């Protein structure tokens, strides 16, 4: 039987997400890097008590509408939604993240509002620590020491140990049950390439969960992605779904 990781829909790819699952959502906070269609399908699927792991646990619909209205419209396409819709839908109980609140004092993210209502809890991490904790899970490393964080709030409850004359914090791997990944192109083996800065946490989270699901613009024949070009080898990817055309990449800048 030929290997084929391509499924018909995001709904099918997410049907086994269970209550209490750890869900790693790739991206950075911006539309280009966000697996929006997988997030929407998870909203529809309805699994509850989720722990979201990602840079931004969720702006939500109201804040994204404001960003669309007052920000750079070219960077805020109509289709964009983020993990905030899961928070607003009452599916989230905890987040491990780096950037939970709005940079503007005038508006709150959906996540911060839920935090104010004590519906969610949060662990805030330096972005590099967040990335490395998930990478460690992917690499089969249980824990590691990082120089970032001693003498700050991040140190709380962690072992401090000196290496090369500098204090380091012990940080444990964070393994997910499901990774939601935005990539550009895939083949049926699950080999992935990304475009531009949309690689970010997506390529780190691909492989950091038990089930890794990629949302792509295009599924190409085996061999079209050249071996040297593949960023995420298919071994890290379990399921692939196609994005609808409205969300496809527009190559404005050339490189």
């Amino acid at each position, binding site marked *: 039987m030929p290997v084929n990781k391509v499924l018909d829909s995001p709904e099918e790819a997410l049907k086994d997400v269970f209550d209490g699952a750890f869900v790693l959502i790739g991206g950075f906070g911006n539309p280009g890097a966000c697996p929006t269609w997988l997030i929407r399908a998870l909203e529809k699927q309805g699994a509850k008590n989720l722990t979201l792991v990602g840079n931004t646990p969720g702006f939500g619909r109201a804040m994204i509408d404001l960003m669309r209205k007052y920000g750079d419209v070219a960077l805020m396409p109509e289709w964009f939604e983020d993990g905030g819709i899961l928070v607003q839908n009452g599916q989230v109980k905890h987040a491990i993240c780096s950037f939970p609140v709005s940079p503007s004092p005038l508006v709150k993210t959906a996540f911060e509002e839920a935090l104010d209502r004590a519906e969610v809890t949060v662990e805030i991490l330096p972005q*590099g620590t967040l990335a490395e904790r998930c990478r460690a899970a992917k690499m089969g490393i249980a824990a590691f020491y990082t120089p970032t964080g001693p003498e700050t709030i991040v140190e709380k409850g962690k072992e401090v140990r000196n290496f090369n004359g500098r204090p380091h914090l012990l940080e444990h791997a964070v393994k997910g049950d499901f990774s939601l990944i935005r990539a550009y192109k895939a083949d049926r083996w699950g080999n992935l390439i990304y475009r531009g800065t949309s690689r970010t946490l997506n390529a780190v989270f691909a492989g950091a969960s038990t089930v890794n699901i990629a949302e792509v613009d295009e599924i190409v024949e085996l061999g079209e992605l050249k071996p040297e070009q593949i960023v995420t080898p298919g071994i890290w990817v379990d399921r692939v779904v196609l994005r609808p055309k409205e969300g496809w990449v527009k190559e404005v800048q050339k490189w």
Partner: protein
Amino acid sequence: MVEKAKLDREIIALRAAKEFKDGDIVNLGIGIPTYASNFIPVGREVIFHTENGCLGFGPVADPQTADLDLVNAGTQAVTAQLGMSFFDHADSFGMIRCGRIDICVLGGLQVSEKGDLANWITPGRKIGNIGGGMDLAFNAKKLIITMEHVTKNGEPKIVKECTYPLTAPHCVNLIITDMAVIEITGEGLVLKEVAPGWTADEIQALTEPKLLLAPDLKEIELI
């Protein structure tokens, strides 16, 4: 009383950009620091790094050329350049932690006389955004803070001890404000440059710790 003129945000960024040397790898935070990329002298090759996974990108793009897949850490669209490379977040922070970033410019809420930085949690808020700033503050070879010299209420932001939660201890090398340039040294804070029209005494009155005066204290040179 007539308020004295302070430097505007772009002029602060212009002064910060003077610190960048040929070949430096530079990471710019959100806010005032972002403007610094607009002030690189022609012929000087500075390579910009952004946490979300790009080295060697060009200036900020205009709305017509905004590409969703080419943004900086402030999620502003930037432009492609020859030599540019992309990488994932783990690599990006590896570059930061292992000391490959020559200069990082961040904003600040408070800087202490020891060079402690507080900039991640806004007063009156329960939580804040650590983002990439903490890794950068801990690990960049040189950390420059650009900020207003005092708060909106006129309180000093350069203080003896930070009262806000720390981003990193003992990390700041240079502070560039709308009134002064101050270097953090083993001996203490050294006032090196003042904005036009300001005296060292006036700057001291708005700064909590004692300032040492540089032997060559001068007006800020922008060119």
